[in-house]
């Protein structure tokens, strides 16, 4: 059986997202859903309720008065942020394992995903067309899920990867993955997301976050936001080990975003404080 077949089988066998996360994603797929339904789903899960309340009361979302009800928390954080927290908090098999194939520590994927989510949310506000900042947050949480599956296959070839990177320091890591495994974390992530019936635009962000120009034209502004959020997260030191910054920035982002030195530095100053605060959400 080829490596790509083994990976495909691993995707098939991969533990599905927990029921609460699946129910929330399904609900979000329905544009006419009722916010009360979301509150109800979250409230049924005690651990998740605690997590959402602690985020709502963290300094990143500091308010004059304490958030005490789930309705207040959802209204403050936005529905998609709550969904993102639900996915991250309830999926330890994706986010909490060590990524040996990337030489990344336990929890690095969650730390990177959460920071990409925060950065994508901020950058999406600078888009020339209107895209959902909340949805960008969720896409940031999900964008690298494929790494959880291909990690062990990369781990077996780590010596070859290190040699390759030493010889060619400016390579694109997704291309390295593809050459070694016949696939990469974006393609595998998309397969996982499709199997879980995750909404199409989120699947597109997972698939094209390193090549946003190849996404459907209508999804491109959204996918570029995740692409740029991913870069900001890596630039601020939160990557997933060996592939940190070993990717190409697609400078066609200018079609969709008005960004200058000053605006990008302003975004960094802002998300850097949210990143610091996010540490309390990771544990």
């Amino acid at each position: 059986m080829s490596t790509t077949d083994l990976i495909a089988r691993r995707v098939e066998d991969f533990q599905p997202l927990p029921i609460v996360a699946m129910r929330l994603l399904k609900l979000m797929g329905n544009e006419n859903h009722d916010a009360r339904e979301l509150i109800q789903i979250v409230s049924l899960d005690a651990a998740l309720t605690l997590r959402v309340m602690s985020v709502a009361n963290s300094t990143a979302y500091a308010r004059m008065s304490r958030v005490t009800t789930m309705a207040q928390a959802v209204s403050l954080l936005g529905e998609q942020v709550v969904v993102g927290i639900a996915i991250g908090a309830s999926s330890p098999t994706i986010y909490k394992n060590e990524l040996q194939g990337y030489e990344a520590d336990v929890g690095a994927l969650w730390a990177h995903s959460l920071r990409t989510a925060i950065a994508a949310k901020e950058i999406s506000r600078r888009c020339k067309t209107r895209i959902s900042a909340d949805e960008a947050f969720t896409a940031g949480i999900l964008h690298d899920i494929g790494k959880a599956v291909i990690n062990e296959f990369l781990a077996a070839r780590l010596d070859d990867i290190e040699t390759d990177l030493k010889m060619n320091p400016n390579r694109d890591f997704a291309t390295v993955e593809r050459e070694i495994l016949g696939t990469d974390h974006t393609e595998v992530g998309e397969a996982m997301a499709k199997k879980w019936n995750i909404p199409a635009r989120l699947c597109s962000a997972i698939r094209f976050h390193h090549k946003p120009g190849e996404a459907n034209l209508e999804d491109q502004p959204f996918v570029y936001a995740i692409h740029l959020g991913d870069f900001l997260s890596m630039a601020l030191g939160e990557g997933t080990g060996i592939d940190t910054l070993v990717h190409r920035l697609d400078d066609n982002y200018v079609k969709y975003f008005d960004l200058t030195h000053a605006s990008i530095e302003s975004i960094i100053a802002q998300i850097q404080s949210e990143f610091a605060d996010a540490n309390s959400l990771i544990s």
Partner: protein
Amino acid sequence: MSIVYVGIGEWAASSDPNTKIRTLGLGSCIGVVAYCSISNIGGLLHIALPDSQINTQRAATKPGVFADTGIPLFLKDLQELGVSYQQRLVIKLIGGATIMDANQVFNIGKRNLLAVKKILWANQLGAIVEEVGGQFSRSVELDVGTGITRINSPGRGSWEI
């Protein structure tokens, strides 16, 4: 041996020979190592942005985020520990990874490096080693007892500068 971790926008300075000061994951950020081999006093600062004017509120609460507000305070702490920095301080710069962007917006590492050098020059200081640029992240550790500075990068191993 105690290890002190320095986060983004933070610094640490020490005269304890049994201390190592470490910062993790320098991407476009700059790690400034300063060490006096006469007094064996040293420190490490983790800068994220060149200029505090971009967010003066943030600079007030976390001055180490910016080169212009962080470096003077870092040097002041070293001086208070007993460093005669203008004569003896050895400076090493680490990080400032390159993000290739034809629009010159995301090349924050380069702007950080220029700003750090400018502020150092204004304080009559210059780096003797620059472990900067490239498309990868670096972690740094300063051994206060010896002044040895080690870099670590996933997939690229560990080396001394």
